[in-house]
Every structure is written in C-alpha cells, then in structure tokens.
C-alpha cells in the first residue's frame, strides 16, 4: 500500500498555512470538532457559482439542468463512498444533528408508545442523546443506556440485556467523539436485528477517517456531517435503507418533494426527494462531493493508516508525560485522545496550547453525561486529521510539559 504523502496533502489545505494573531503557525488538533477544507472544495464551490449556478430540480433551461445534474451526481458520489445499495438511499440533510432529529420526528415518534424503550450508549454525543431522550419523555417511554467498561468500550453483555421486544430503536455512535472508542457496529446491529429492532448509527466521527460500508454494517439509518469529513458546513447525509425511507412519512414538507398538491391533500414524491423539501443545499452537496473525490483520490485506507500511526504515537507520548492521564483504553481507537493533566483545568491547558498555536478542545465535548459517568468535569482532547504530523504532537508535548510544571 502506498503511504499518504502528508507534505503534499498539507499544501492542499490553505488553513494550515495560517498563523495565529500571536504569529504562531497553526497546529490544528481539533479535527473531531471539525476538519479543514482542501482547496478542491473551495474550487468546487467557486466553480458552481461562477459556472452553472441555478436552483435545482425545477428549471428546464441551462444552467438549471446542469445544476440538477451536479446535485444528483453528488448524491451518487456519496452513495458510492458509504457503499449504499442505491443513490436513492442518500438523503441530504443539514448535518448529523439534523438527520437524527428527522429520524426521531418522522420514524420514531409516530410509532413510539408508552412502555417502549430506546437504547443508546453512555458514549453518545448530545446530538444522539437529547432527541431520543425528549421523545421518550414526551411519550412515557424509557431511555436505556448501555454502560461502559473501564476501558471505555461498551459493555456488550449489558447491551444484550437491554434489548427486548419493546425496544423501538437502537441509536449508537460508531466512534466516541470523546474517548475515541471504535464500537463493534456490525455485531451490535446484528444483535438488535435478532430482536427485529432497527438501528441508527451516528457515523459523524467515522466517515471521514475510515472506510465506511453501510451495507456491511447492515445499519438501517446512518447519519453524518460534511464538515467533519473535509467538506462544507451546513450539509450532511441521512442514509436509510430504501424500504425504510419509503415507509417513513416525509421528514419535512414543502416544494419539490411532492407529486400532487391540493389545498387539503398532498401526494408525496418517491425517495429520496420526498424527504428533501425545499431548495436543497447545492453548494454544500457540490462541496461535499469534491471533498469525497479528494478523499478517494488519496485513499481512505491510506488516510486511516496515517492517523492511526499519529494516534499511537500521541498515546505513547501522553502516557509518558508526568501528571497526564488518558481517559479510556479501548480495543480499537479512532484518532481521538482525551486526557487530563494534574493540577491544570482542561480549559487552562487549552489556553496555554492556543498561545503556541496549538488548537485542541477542552470541556465536555457535548458528552456531559459521559463526563459525569467518568467523574471528571471535562477533558483536554486532541484529535487528528489526515494533514497532521508527528512534529505537531512533539510540540504539543513540549507545551504540556510546561503546563504541568506551571500548574503543579
């Protein structure tokens, strides 16, 4: 396998050449929050607005025909990228949060009964927790939460014990955005399917980092966000099995998603359009397709391998730092490492690092209940993208050492 040429990759990302107001060059280690964009994404957006922009799916003039083509081409690109059986299974959303809320509103809510339950895990991001929590509260259903083992891995026995014939849905993250745990998605989906339970996978932290195959997972719904996979903000995908998308009522209502409208009645269009009312985010779709082409050009396996090496190195270095401790020690780790430093509050750690141009995240990472469970108010978190290099980790460690000394 050819390795990733990181120096070449770095040149494709204009943001990596920026410097902080203090003149430090940026070491961007907050990729779990959002990733930087390659120039190809910018060029695609510029190409759209200077070359063929128009509303999608309605006009029969050029450039409307060209714009519609670009939109459906993006959908096909996405379908290929996640190995969907058909482009019809790809619904564009505003992001992972939007996708989860839509499944909650249109798929879960109409069938959720008092006494039913929804199973999630202690790892869930607020986006994959609060919608289910609020649906359960509204209906009188139960939210069941799969426990963590001390490694951070999910307790599979506990998971199995939570599934029963009143389970309306399992909603599970593929990767913990806080601990970096990679969950055994396929096995967990299989377990749920044995009870006839549908499964939504939150792949926000997965799709940009490792090859993703929704059919191999056999997941029923999968959501993710463009901005975490080197694409634009404001766009995301809800994958759903065709039969499920067909039987689910429209996720919202409006133009372009219908076949026939009277004042008192509406006949809806076929999937995916039925779930995409209104003018779609063409800019987002075109930008995301460009990001995917860029990723595929480099190779997802190559990208995965590169960030995996960085992560192993970072874990080793942080473990070696006096006063520092890593949270979680999972079997499989995504490029995400959470840690604390004795005596120093995570926000102070991040503040010191920021002064040197090193961007990391501190706080609860939108996983407050997980923090409560781990008994920490927050963590410092580094997360890697395809453009990060070992030297950035060395720089991080130099400053962490000083932070420890300063606050100890």
């Amino acid at each position, binding site marked *: 396998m050819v390795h990733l040429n990181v120096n070449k990759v770095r040149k494709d990302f204009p943001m990596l050449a920026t410097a902080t107001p203090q003149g430090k060059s940026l070491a961007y280690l907050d990729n779990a929050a959002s990733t930087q964009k390659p120039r190809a994404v910018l060029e695609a957006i510029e190409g759209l607005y200077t070359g063929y922009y128009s509303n999608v*799916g309605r*006009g*029969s003039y*050029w450039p409307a025909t060209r714009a*519609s083509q670009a939109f459906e081409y993006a959908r096909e690109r996405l379908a290929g990228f996640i190995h969907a059986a058909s482009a019809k299974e790809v619904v564009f959303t505003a992001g992972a949060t939007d996708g989860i809320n839509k499944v909650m509103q249109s798929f879960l809510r109409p069938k959720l009964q008092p006494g039913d339950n929804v199973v999630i895990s202690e790892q869930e991001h607020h986006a994959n927790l609060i919608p289910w929590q609020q649906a359960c509260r509204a209906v009188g259903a139960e939210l069941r939460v799969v426990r963590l083992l001390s490694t951070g891995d999910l307790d599979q026995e506990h998971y199995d014990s939570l599934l029963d014939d009143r389970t309306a849905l399992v909603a599970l993250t593929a990767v913990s955005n806080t601990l970096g745990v990679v969950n055994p998605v396929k096995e967990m989906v299989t377990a749920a399917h044995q009870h006839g339970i549908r499964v939504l996978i939150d792949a926000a932290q997965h799709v940009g980092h490792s090859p993703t195959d929704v059919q191999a997972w056999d997941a029923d719904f999968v959501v993710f966000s463009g901005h975490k996979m080197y694409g634009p903000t404001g766009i995301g995908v809800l994958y759903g099995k065709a039969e499920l998308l067909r039987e689910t009522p429209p996720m919202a209502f409006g133009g*372009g998603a219908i076949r026939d409208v009277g004042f008192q009645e509406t006949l809806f*269009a076929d999937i995916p359009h039925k779930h995409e009312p209104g003018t779609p985010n063409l800019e987002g779709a075109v930008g995301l397709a460009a990001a995917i082409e860029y990723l595929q050009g480099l190779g997802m396996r190559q990208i995965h391998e590169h960030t995996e090496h960085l992560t192993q190195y970072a874990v080793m270095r942080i473990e070696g730092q006096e006063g520092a401790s890593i949270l979680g020690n999972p079997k499989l780790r995504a490029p995400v490492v959470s840690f604390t430093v004795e005596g120093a509050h995570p926000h102070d750690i991040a503040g010191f690092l920021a002064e040197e141009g090193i961007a990391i995240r501190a706080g609860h990472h939108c996983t407050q209940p997980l923090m409560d469970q781990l008994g920490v108010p927050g963590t410092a978190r580094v997360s890697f993208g395809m453009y990060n290099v070992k030297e950035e980790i060395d720089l991080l460690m130099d400053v962490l050492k000083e932070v420890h000394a300063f606050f100890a």
Partner: protein
Amino acid sequence: MNERIKGLYKTQILAHSKNPFQEGELEGATHVLQAYNSMCGDKYTLYLKIENDRVEDAYFKGYGCAISKASSSILTKKSIGKSMEELDALVRLFLKIVSAKEEVSPEDLTDEEELLAFSAAREFPEREICATMSWKVVQEELLKE
C-alpha cells in the same frame, strides 16, 4: 428563428401535440400508470387495457409540453394490438432512438416516421426526459412485472 430547436419540434410532433391520438380516459383499463417529471411537473396518466397478454386499447390524459404530449400520443397509438413482448421491443427501440448515448443512428434503428420524428431529442439531452417519461413508466411498471 433558431433552426436547431425547430428541429426538435418536427411537424409530426407539433401536429401530434395539438391533435393527439388516444387522448382521454379509458373505462375498463386493466392498468393505470402515472408518468411524472419532477423536474418540470409534467404529468400523464396512462390507461391500458391488456387482455391475453396483448394491449387491446390504450389512452393517455394529462399535462405537459408538446414533446411529452406527442410522445405519449405515439406511445398509446403504437402499443395498441401489441403483445407484451412486442411492446417491450417497441419501448426499447424508442428509448434508443432518443438517447444521446446510443451510437447507432436513428435511421439505422427504424424507418417508422412517427418514431423517427423524435430523434432530434438526441441533440437536446435535457429534453430526453420529455420524450421518454411515459415510455419509461411503461417499461418500469408494466414490462418489468
């Protein structure tokens, strides 16, 4: 005036669109299909009466541009009397005639004038859907059964 686009609206097509064959509903239809072009909102209902594997009668009704109307008219007219196998062959032939991706020239595919009238659609790929919307729904919902 622009001659290229006039080529698309051959006399045949114009005539057919103004005075279409087989326009109307068909009582006793065994199959009622909906053809819909979400791009522009054109919409036809196709009524077919199929007995003993043969199209006994066919009508269409709906709303759309001259191309889509003329093509629905020709479709219903030509399908009458055809066996399902013959209809399948006809649909395949028509789709080739109008497809910009087809390499064989329309004239080498057929010499039926009413079909050849649509061959200019090859030069207007964005109008291919107008020419084919009714034909495709027949193929997808009737012939794939």
